[in-house]
């Protein structure tokens, strides 16, 4: 009896979320038709060819248009008398200078007024970063920051690491400046805010390579193009966090500043921004991590640094070397993240005042002393070659050994997965007729959100079907579908365990926090090492990457079910499993759907990069367009992929109740 009562409550709630009882019947009917259309080919029913795939003569030359439009903007267009290309090259020039300066400082050496200066000696950089860790964190943090650089030096990756760090720092500086500026603008003018928010949403779903294409055209191939791409890719969280942080400052602080006689600019500069700074640091940390991800990926378009080392090693199958460099990326990422967090969490103390001069002195000594000693002691200027170690050959041997030992089972696993999972799913997706896909998306939109959602999602799907990349789109979707299913299958039970056991949760958090800070590129290394290239390794990489949000968001969703309701259910005699299935899961439904959504978005993020190990979907088109200088192809394939991600995002958010908070 109690069970029935318990059950009716959450279900009626579910209905309320879906809304509109009247509109449900036609939506359900449409859904049935859509499912039927999608499944017909599976039962051997021949579709009219025009409904299965849009015939070529109806496909508009999007690709050509996009290419021409970009070429026009980049080469011939002008604003007033000024060519757009001059503006973009100008911006590029402004950005190039600090980057060259910093790269010169830490790695390449500088020429000032005809005098050639050597780069900072390695002990300067290492000591200074350890001091930073000590200043803002603890001895442990100092060991981490200093240790990461020591590792780089020890394994002969010093120059690459310095180049990567220089690029990251410069793009963080620009990303933070740009983001802060846009954030202030959105704070002052709600209309600007409303215009920017959806733009940021799209920016965060567009595949990275699709970004690179137009940016490289506008800003030129080379380090500056990569830098611009990084800044644009990493900036949105900063802008968002800035606006939120400013809104969070009590109004009276601004009023107090105004009463003190501040001008409008002074109120912002002297009162609001500094008060919002601690929260804004969260944004800075995100920019830092996103920049690192992008700087590593930019190796694909020829940027120097750790990413390039990894890429070269993987391409020439020097797995051990790739692993060493990959580990350097991991260490740098973790060190940067922890340092960023430590700085963000700091609050001023009155005891600091006296100490800060001593710290400044310590930094000065750490930086200058090695510079003075370096001319006398060459080992300080350049890390001596015979101090370096390499474990590459050891790794290579281990991997060869492992491959030998596991070759049989691995091959069997691969074959099994291919025969029973990959191939059938792939064939299934390839057989889905476009008309079925468009109807399905529209029907779901109608059911979950109403006709506006149906229309927008349907139109986006129609674009995907009719842009000339239908088959790659299906190839992308099939990988996403399998990997999301697997990630949820693994991640949700883990999330469940986290919600149930605080101790398990504590352990898991450390693992998740660490995994999440790693640039996506790093995940490819062990996968290639053990499995080679192709769809199956790509699948594994995506699953590993996308499991994190599945665990985390599932745990969050279940933990936020009010304890009293669960107790009430237990008091009405519900068993553990009844309690779970009928009370917790329905109540946590919006949160769980968000977990699914995050998993899908992360899967897309990784899918993009799997193009590097030979997948064949839209992601590979965006990658190929880079090397073939065919911008139209990259832009349209990238847009199609963004649309797929946006469709899924919108539908899942609508299912979760629309207004659920963004993570």
């Amino acid at each position, binding site marked *: 009896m109690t069970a029935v009562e318990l059950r009716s409550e959450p279900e009626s709630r579910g209905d309320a979320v879906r809304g509109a009882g009247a509109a449900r019947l036609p939506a359900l009917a449409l859904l049935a038709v859509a499912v039927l259309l999608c499944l017909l080919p599976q039962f051997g029913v021949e579709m009219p060819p025009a409904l299965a795939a849009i015939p070529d003569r109806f496909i508009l030359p999007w690709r050509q248009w996009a290419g021409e439009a970009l070429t026009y903007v980049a080469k011939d267009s002008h604003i007033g008398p000024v060519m757009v290309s001059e503006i973009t090259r100008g911006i590029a020039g402004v950005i190039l200078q600090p980057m060259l300066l910093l790269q010169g400082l830490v790695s390449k050496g500088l020429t000032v007024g005809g005098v050639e200066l050597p780069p900072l000696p390695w002990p300067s950089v290492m000591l200074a970063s350890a001091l930073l860790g000590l200043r803002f964190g603890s001895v442990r943090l100092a060991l981490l920051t200093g240790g990461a650089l020591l590792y780089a030096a020890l394994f002969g990756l010093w120059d690459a690491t310095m180049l990567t760090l220089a690029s990251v720092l410069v793009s963080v500086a620009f990303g933070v400046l740009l983001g802060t500026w846009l954030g202030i603008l959105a704070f002052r003018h709600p209309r600007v805010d409303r215009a920017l928010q959806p733009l940021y949403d799209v920016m965060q779903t567009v595949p990275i390579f699709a970004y690179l294409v137009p940016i490289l055209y506008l800003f030129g191939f080379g380090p500056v193009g990569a830098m611009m791409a990084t800044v644009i890719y990493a900036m949105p969280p900063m802008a968002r966090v800035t606006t939120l942080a400013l809104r969070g400052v009590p109004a009276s602080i601004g*009023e107090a500043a105004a009463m003190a*006689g501040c001008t409008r600019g002074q109120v912002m500069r002297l009162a609001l921004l500094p008060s919002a700074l601690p929260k804004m640091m969260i944004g800075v940390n995100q920019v830092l991590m996103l920049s690192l991800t992008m700087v590593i990926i930019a190796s694909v378009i020829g940027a120097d640094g750790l990413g390039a080392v990894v890429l070269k090693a993987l391409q020439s199958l020097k797995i051990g070397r790739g692993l060493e460099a990959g580990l350097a990326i991991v260490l740098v990422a973790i060190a940067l993240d922890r340092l960023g967090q430590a700085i963000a969490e700091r609050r001023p103390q*009155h005891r600091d005042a006296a100490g800060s001069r001593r710290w400044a002195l310590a930094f000065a000594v750490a930086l200058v002393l090695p510079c003075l000693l370096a001319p006398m002691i060459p080992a300080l200027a350049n890390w001596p070659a015979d101090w370096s170690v390499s474990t590459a050959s050891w790794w290579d041997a281990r991997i060869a050994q492992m491959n030998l030992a596991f070759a049989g089972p691995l091959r069997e696993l691969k074959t099994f997965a291919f025969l029973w999972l990959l191939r059938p799913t792939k064939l299934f997706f390839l057989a889905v007729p476009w008309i079925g896909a468009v109807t399905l998306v529209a029907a779901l939109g109608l059911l979950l959100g109403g006709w506006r959602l149906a229309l927008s999602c349907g139109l986006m799907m129609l674009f995907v079907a009719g842009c000339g990349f239908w088959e790659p789109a299906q190839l992308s979707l099939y990988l996403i579908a399998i990997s999301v299913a697997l990630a949820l299958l693994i991640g949700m039970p883990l999330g469940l365990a986290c919600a149930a056991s605080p101790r398990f949760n504590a352990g898991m958090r450390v693992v998740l926090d660490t995994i999440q800070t790693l640039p996506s590129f790093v995940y490819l290394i062990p996968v290639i090492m053990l499995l080679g290239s192709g769809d199956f390794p790509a699948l594994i990489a995506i699953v590993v990457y996308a499991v994190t949000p599945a665990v985390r968001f599932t745990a969050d969703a279940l933990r936020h079910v009010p304890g009293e309701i669960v107790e009430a259910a237990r008091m009405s005699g519900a068993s553990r499993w009844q309690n779970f299935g009928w009370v917790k899961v329905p109540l946590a439904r919006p949160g769980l759907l968000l977990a699914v959504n995050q998993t899908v978005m992360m899967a897309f993020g990784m899918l993009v990069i799997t193009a590097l190990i030979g997948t064949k979907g839209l992601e590979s088109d965006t990658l190929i367009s880079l090397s073939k200088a065919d911008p139209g192809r990259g832009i349209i394939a990238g847009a199609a992929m963004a649309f797929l991600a946006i469709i899924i995002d919108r539908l899942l958010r609508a299912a979760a109740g629309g207004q659920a908070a963004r993570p």
Partner: protein
Amino acid sequence: MSTTNRILLCDNVWKVYGPDADTFLSTREQPPSPEDLAAAGLLAAVRGVSLSISQGEIFVIMGLSGSGKSTLLRCMTRLVEPTAGSILLGGTNLLNATERQLMQIRREKMGMVFQNYALMPHLSALENVAFPLKVQGMKRAAREARAQQMLDLVGLGGRGRHYPHELSGGQQQRVGIARSLTLEPDIWFLDEPFSALDPLVRREMQDEFLRLQTLLRKTIVFVTHDFAEAVRLADRIAIMREGAVVQVATPEALVLAPADPYVSAFTRDIPRAQVVTARSAMDLGPDAAGSAGVAAAARVIDIAERVLAAEGPVAVLAEDGGVLGALSREAVIRLLLAQPHTRPAPVQ
């Protein structure tokens, strides 16, 4: 109150929130009723308020939460732009001032204290107090010396290097008070400065406030929703209700002659002896010869002990020393024993 030394004059000030509030108000000939406004989707936080505040007085604005006290106070400083009306500060209309003039007026004439202290979290106590001087470009050493004086004045001299989160609520508000006085304002605005403090600290801060006022003699506009606090501090009290001022009077007059039930509801819990003055409680007639008299403006609670200890009725003296009447022990006892929520027996 004489009219010659009025320093702040509000005339028919309105603040209406909502779309197109300006045009709505300016197209009306009659002042709109709350119903009219609600029908137009507008909310009047301040409705046609006219007030005059004199040099050196402590003027308290009281009312329930949401009655528009803070909004009115912010209109007076133009932190909120009034929708209609005029506000004269020492003769100049604040609402005609340009951005630059306004900035200058705030620097020279106004100081403000906020309910939640509104200290900048990134600045130490000393830097917070020095902030208004920094804005004007004063050199660091000079402004910090001045700020140190202000901190000494509020009894926080030793805590200058502490950051706001390292100070208690009462200490933070002392910093807020010091900051608002740094520029030596003519008018001092305080928006529920002690509401966030616990009762003991609040009491202590009120004493501190009165001590400062005897030292500095500012003109003060003080917002509170605590009538006991208002009675302790105020020369005059304005009671607000739904944006309009219902009554402006001395604490005593509010208690003895409330304009309507809303006002008397406020005054109900106040012990009579705390507000009634000797002048109101005395008996007419000069039968109090001999003893040293009490001032006519003194509150009964403050002189009760002396009257009760005296042999007979005590003389009540005007400011010039002339005898106005006599205060009997019976009258004092009646007031002391009066149940706060009943009206006191008519004093004759």
